[in-house]
């Protein structure tokens, strides 16, 4: 098998002592930031982007991937013990996990989520290894028109289909477009949206945008909400080892969760919220212990969504590595890391950067092993991390935010932009605008524009090209259905029931 030999080569790359060390650092850091509320993988990877000027691409992507996977593991610990989902993808884990912790079965909840994450993460990574070469075969046939239409589909799904409101999601996306267009237009050399200032000619760094929205905005929001109820940490009771009955109740949800999570993550829609909610609904339906759901906490309701979450996190890497199509904020920031190395992720990545891609995939397997060790026997360490008081935690986040931003060019103007974006991030958080589409719009917007203009140039300015190519037309039709379909559906439901309409879960 071709994939297996590539994978063997990847392990040779990943098993060098330095790369193992990067993997260990990444997974440890990832778990820590996953556990800490207010910090996420997108923010952390953004802050660490300058490392791309220092080390080889393999090393930094192994580090970033470790952070990415680690945050998924760490986030579930916070959800279970604190009931404050550390990551949006672990909202569902908090539903049953926190109830289990309150009824003294926190140990089992942590164990099933860590082992389930391991099982699903490993299956998902296998999925990446085997699916990626297949996707590449199709992707090589894509022209600029198809790429543009695919990006339109991704824009619609990440901003309009997921989340609570398509208008607000699209607003975030368009704000991202504007930020992404600031600076010199690469094809004509014309400055755009610079307001006549020289500082904006280079564009706005993704570090500033991510740190402003995620760190400064989040801190301002938390400060403004100090009157809201405080969460208490549920002390960890019960053994970390699952009983035979708990194993028996966990393994099927793990596999089902992985089977739901990976394909949804691998679609150019992305997002871990839908698969986790879906897995939760399925486990609730299939469980023989329905009475435990919503009362003392059902282990299936932790095992399934956790597995779905990790498998979809792995799935997101498929469009990212094969098409250069990021579908989450974290993936978008990783894409900008590729750009910082001068590498263009796309169908050629697997052949031109075989060391990098297969080393990265192999290191994901290693990361999963390290993470299950870090998150089960060493769980006490992370629980202690949860006890960091909020004042010092958020003040510390701001110190690191300043380091990361001021370090780019030692310009107070960058800091001023950072704080303005922080204010915008606060308003977005306060008024329920999703922030991830801003990052995706900012990174992917310019790429979509390039493909659009390339397609138009080839066709001599004939815009019907996007509708004449069958694949492009299909993708655009799907995007259109994604945009208006839910509204028509809601309208029909509304007419039929004449009752209040319910949107299942916002994310």
């Amino acid at each position, binding site marked *: 098998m071709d994939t297996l030999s590539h994978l063997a080569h990847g392990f040779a790359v990943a098993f060098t002592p330095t790369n193992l060390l990067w993997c260990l650092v990444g997974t440890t850091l990832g778990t820590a930031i996953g556990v800490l509320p207010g910090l996420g993988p997108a923010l952390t990877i953004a802050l*660490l982007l*300058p490392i791309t*000027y*220092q080390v080889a691409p393999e090393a930094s992507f192994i580090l970033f991937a470790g952070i990415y996977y680690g945050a998924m593991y760490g986030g579930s610990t916070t959800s279970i013990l604190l009931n404050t989902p550390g990551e949006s993808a672990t909202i569902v884990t908090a539903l049953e996990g926190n109830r289990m912790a309150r009824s003294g079965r926190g140990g089992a909840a942590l164990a099933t989520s860590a082992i389930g994450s391991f099982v699903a993460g490993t299956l998902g990574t296998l999925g990446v290894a085997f699916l990626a070469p297949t996707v590449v075969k199709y992707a090589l046939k894509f022209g600029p028109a198809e790429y543009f239409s695919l990006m339109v589909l991704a824009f619609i799904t990440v901003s309009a289909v997921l989340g*609570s*409101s398509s*208008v*607000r999601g699209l*607003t975030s996306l*368009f*704000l991202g*477009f*504007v930020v992404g*267009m600031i600076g010199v*237009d690469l094809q*004509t050399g*014309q*400055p*755009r*949206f610079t*307001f006549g200032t020289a500082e904006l000619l280079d564009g706005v760094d993704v570090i500033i945008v991510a740190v402003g929205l995620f760190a400064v905005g989040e*801190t*301002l929001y938390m*400060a*403004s*909400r*100090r009157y809201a109820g405080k969460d208490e940490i549920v002390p960890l009771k019960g053994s970390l080892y699952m009983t035979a009955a708990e194993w028996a109740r966990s393994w099927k949800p793990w596999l089902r969760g992985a089977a739901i999570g990976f394909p949804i993550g691998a679609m150019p829609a992305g997002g871990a919220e839908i698969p986790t909610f879906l897995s939760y609904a399925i486990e609730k339906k299939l469980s023989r212990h329905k009475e435990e759901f919503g009362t003392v906490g059902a282990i299936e309701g932790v095992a399934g969504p956790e597995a779905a979450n990790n498998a979809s996190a792995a799935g997101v890497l498929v469009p990212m590595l094969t098409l250069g199509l990021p579908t989450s904020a974290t993936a978008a920031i990783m894409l900008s890391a590729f750009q910082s190395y001068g590498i263009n992720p796309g169908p050629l990545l697997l052949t031109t950067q075989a060391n990098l891609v297969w080393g990265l995939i192999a290191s994901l397997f290693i990361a999963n092993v390290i993470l299950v060790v870090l998150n089960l026997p060493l769980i006490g360490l992370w629980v202690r991390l949860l006890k960091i008081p*909020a*004042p*010092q935690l*958020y*003040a*510390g986040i*701001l*110190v*690191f935010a*300043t*380091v*990361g931003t*001021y*370090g*780019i060019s*030692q310009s*107070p103007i960058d*800091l001023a932009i950072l*704080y303005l974006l*922080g204010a915008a991030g606060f*308003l977005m958080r*306060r*008024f*329920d605008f999703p922030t991830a589409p801003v990052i995706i719009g900012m990174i992917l917007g310019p790429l979509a524009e390039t493909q*659009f203009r390339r397609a*138009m140039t080839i066709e001599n*300015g004939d815009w019907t090209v996007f509708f004449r190519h069958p694949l492009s037309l299909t993708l655009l039709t799907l995007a259109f259905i994604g945009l208006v379909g839910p509204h028509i559906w809601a309208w029909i439901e509304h007419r039929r029931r004449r*009752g*209040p*309409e319910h*949107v299942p*879960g*916002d994310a």
Partner: protein
Amino acid sequence: MSTSDHQASPPRLALPELLIGVGLLACAGAVAWQTLAIPVSPLYSKVGPTVFPYITMAGMILLSLLLILAAMRGGWQPDEEKETPTDWKAMGLVAAGLVANLVLIQPLGFTAASVIMFVLVCFGFGSRHPLRDALLGLVLALAAYFGFAKALGVNIGAGLIENQLNALIGAMLGGKGG
């Protein structure tokens, strides 16, 4: 969970949401102004650098109108958000910390400015031990400066504290100062 719940009372104009919609419309105006300022060579007239800005502008105008419409129908804030009062004092202190950092980072250097920000933010979040926080902030800022900045090769504005420490480290290494 912001569902547009069935409203028994006639919908009321939601002022904060209206302001957001108007603000976005203003942003679209700024985009229009900046797009018109882009010089276009006739060579690129079909697929030039202004096509995407115009699409973005049109999208933003449409979206801001939809937001204003939603605001006039009672807004979209979830109830739990509306009911929690905003802690202006805490926010003000955090903002003061940020502004202090912005103003002081060049004259005082990164570490000193960070300590001041750290203390103000901690105070805003309800900590009442400014001295302890200052010490903690100093340790953290130095850790950030030496661990993070030096390891990543990022150049951070040095002030009095950093220069003293760099000189000290240089002296201890007995060679060239950092």
